[in-house]
């Protein structure tokens, strides 16, 4: 396996009294694309939000690029090299498309220049001065991804990027993620859409009850399909 970029061990997290993550262990190697699978409510979003540092009631270990992230304040995680595309996309209605795109500060060299982003997403260029939330759902998802590409982060974390989107758009997002992978970007995503995930992921983690219960490479996906369908209830 590639040199680990993100190492999570025995990660616990709480929402007030309620204990949601019960010792998550996972590793993401440099340049890998990892997908987390799991039923609704098992803690996938919580895992991502805890790694990013949005959820502060957490114990255990998060190492990114060798650095201990637990004491790092939220506004410094991006500067360490972690970019986040939330489940609800987080496009700002009072900002134009271009303002949304340039909102996250550039944290390192090697990010995609804005001209290149506009080449990759011509729709965004066309509508650069309209309010961010006037875009279609698919375009908003593209914008949510595009604005992180600018920043030069090393790890892109995405929460269900294809949720509720038309097949053409899903395919487009798949192409974008493949392009990123070719450029060496490390990606960690939560995804319910197997077909989509199998085209881009190198490895999978299966999550249940706030823990990772199994881990397998994409080559094992076909033989595990039946069990997964049963476990995930899809």
């Amino acid at each position, binding site marked *: 396996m590639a040199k680990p970029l993100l190492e999570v061990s025995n990660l616990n997290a709480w929402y007030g009294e309620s204990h949601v993550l019960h010792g998550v262990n996972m590793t993401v190697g440099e340049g890998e694309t990892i997908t987390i699978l799991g039923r609704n409510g098992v803690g996938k979003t919580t895992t991502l939000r805890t790694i*990013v*540092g*949005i959820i502060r009631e957490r114990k255990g270990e998060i190492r990114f690029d060798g650095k201990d992230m637990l004491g790092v304040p*939220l*506004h*410094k*995680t*991006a*500067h360490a090299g972690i970019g*986040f595309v*939330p489940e609800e996309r*987080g496009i*700002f*209605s*009072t*900002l134009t498309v271009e*303002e949304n795109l*340039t*909102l*996250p*500060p550039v*944290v390192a060299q090697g990010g995609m220049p804005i001209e290149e982003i506009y080449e990759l997403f011509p729709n965004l260029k066309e509508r650069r001065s309209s309010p961010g939330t006037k875009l279609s759902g698919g375009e908003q998802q593209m914008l949510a991804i595009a604005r992180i590409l600018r*920043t030069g982060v090393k790890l892109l974390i995405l929460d269900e990027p294809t949720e509720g989107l038309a097949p053409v758009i899903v395919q487009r997002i798949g192409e974008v993620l493949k392009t990123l992978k070719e450029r060496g970007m490390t990606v960690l995503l939560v995804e319910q859409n197997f077909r989509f995930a199998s085209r881009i992921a190198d490895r999978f983690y299966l999550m249940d009850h706030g823990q990772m219960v199994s881990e397998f490479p994409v080559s094992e996906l076909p033989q595990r399909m039946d069990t997964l369908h049963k476990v995930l209830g899809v």
Partner: protein
Amino acid sequence: MTMIFGIPLQAFLGQLLIGLINGSFYALLSLGLAVIFGLLRVINFAHGVQYMLGAFAAMLMLQYFGINYWFALILSPLVVGLFGAVIERFLLSRLYKLDHLYGLLFTFGLALTLEGTFRYLYGASGQPYAVPAQLAGGTNLGFMFLPIYRGWVVVVSLLACIGTWLLIEKTKLGSYLRAATENPVLVQAFGVNVPVLLTFTYALGAGLAAFAGVLAAPVYQVSPLMGSNIIIVVFAVVVVGGMGSIMGAILTGYMLGIAEGLTKVFYPEASNIVIFVIMAIVLLLRPAGLFGRDA
């Protein structure tokens, strides 16, 4: 003599000007309140006191250091803004995790404490602050006599309002402010130091209030109570305009100032309550305010 609606034109224009001046102060103050509320979700009851502090700072700078009006117009908002920054950083920011009511209670308590202290030190009666020599006197426009200082207040307040609006709507910093108003956690996750942004915003609001205070010093008298006198009306302005919109706060400020002025011409008995009557009507018909977004 020219008449308009049975009223001498002179009187009409005179009250219109007074309405515009009051409207300028309402606009500057409700603008600051709206900016602070938008980002911090705090109803800043200390806003009137910050306006009063601005006027006092100008007066004390003149008395003790001979600092003139022009420097005071810049220095006083800076000093009061810095004071606001310290208050936010060390006291107010500790309350964000609690119910919003605590922020309101804290700023209310702060207002009472400061106002009481200034009353104790300087008495309740006002002290005059001279109009700067460059703006003294007036000019005859033919149809009315315009005190130059009053014209200056209207123009410079308008510029300050437009400047603040541009800062928020057209700059990079403004895009951080707008985004953090919508979703502070995500903006912080993107690497923006939101706590510092909150401090800056509170200081900006306090500084704007102090700026209005310096402008007001030569028009009204400098008194510890000047803040409480105006802030009740300004809260009514904010209710009418709706909390959501910066431009709404500015426009409503001017509109209600003018409405108040014109009522003085046509039905003087109602001039003290007209803003509250408008507020009641707006609350009945459009609870979110004229420019507010329905929450």
